[in-house]
């Protein structure tokens, strides 16, 4: 693996972690289980979709932009995952 590819991977990982932490600051979960689910979803989404988001917004190719794209994706994923969990929770059969 060359240095540039490694730097890109590190930027995406760093962005995902930063985005997840920021989302946690703004919208804390209600339980530990929700925290784990949302964190895993956000970290994976940030890492996987950072390139797509960067290209969609036409941001230049640099480690800063990749880090920002990872953070934005992770934050959005946190909020989306939270909404999905709430919707599924609302449809639970009442005992």
């Amino acid at each position, binding site marked *: 693996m060359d240095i540039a590819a490694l730097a890109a991977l590190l930027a995406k990982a760093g962005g995902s972690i930063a985005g997840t*932490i*920021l989302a946690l*600051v*703004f919208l*804390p*979960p*209600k*339980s*530990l289980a*929700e*925290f784990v689910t949302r964190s895993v979803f956000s970290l994976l989404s940030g890492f996987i979709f950072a390139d797509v988001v960067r290209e969609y*917004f036409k*941001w230049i190719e640099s480690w*800063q*932009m990749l880090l*920002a794209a990872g953070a934005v994706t992770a934050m959005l994923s946190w909020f989306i995952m939270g909404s999905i969990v709430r919707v599924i929770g609302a449809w639970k059969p009442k005992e």
Partner: protein
Amino acid sequence: MSVFDIALLIGATVAIFLNWQTPRAVGWVVLLALDFIASTLYWRAGLPYAEAFAGFCDATVCFALYFGAKERWELWVWRLMQASLAINIFYLAVNLRLLRIEISQDTYSSLLEAANWLCLLLIGGVGMLQLIGAENAAAREPWNRVRRFARTVREARARNHFLAKQR
């Protein structure tokens, strides 16, 4: 140090004196002051990504407030610090040219100052209400104009943090 920095530190000292009988409030004011001093020193040193560092300091304070808050007013301070963090993120995004808008450094600094002053006013106000015993008076006089605010001063937070056992 600029006149604004000195004014803010004087404000923090006054808030500490008003809350002398509430160690938790004194702790939050000291933490806010440390946040302000650290981010200002970093900025003045001319180091890169100063707004990211300021955001990091704000996020640390936010975590401390979220996990350490026991009463409702502390969560209001937490909301104000969230606003401060949002301002830092926004300015970082502008500086990185992620957003196609311009925002001057004066505007950014003024917004952060406003957030800091609101925090100090809130903590100082809570201390003042407790000093004059207004929350007790408000409980006796339902027509009191500060009733709604005063009633929540010493009220426990509605929901614990997610790592603690919920009530």
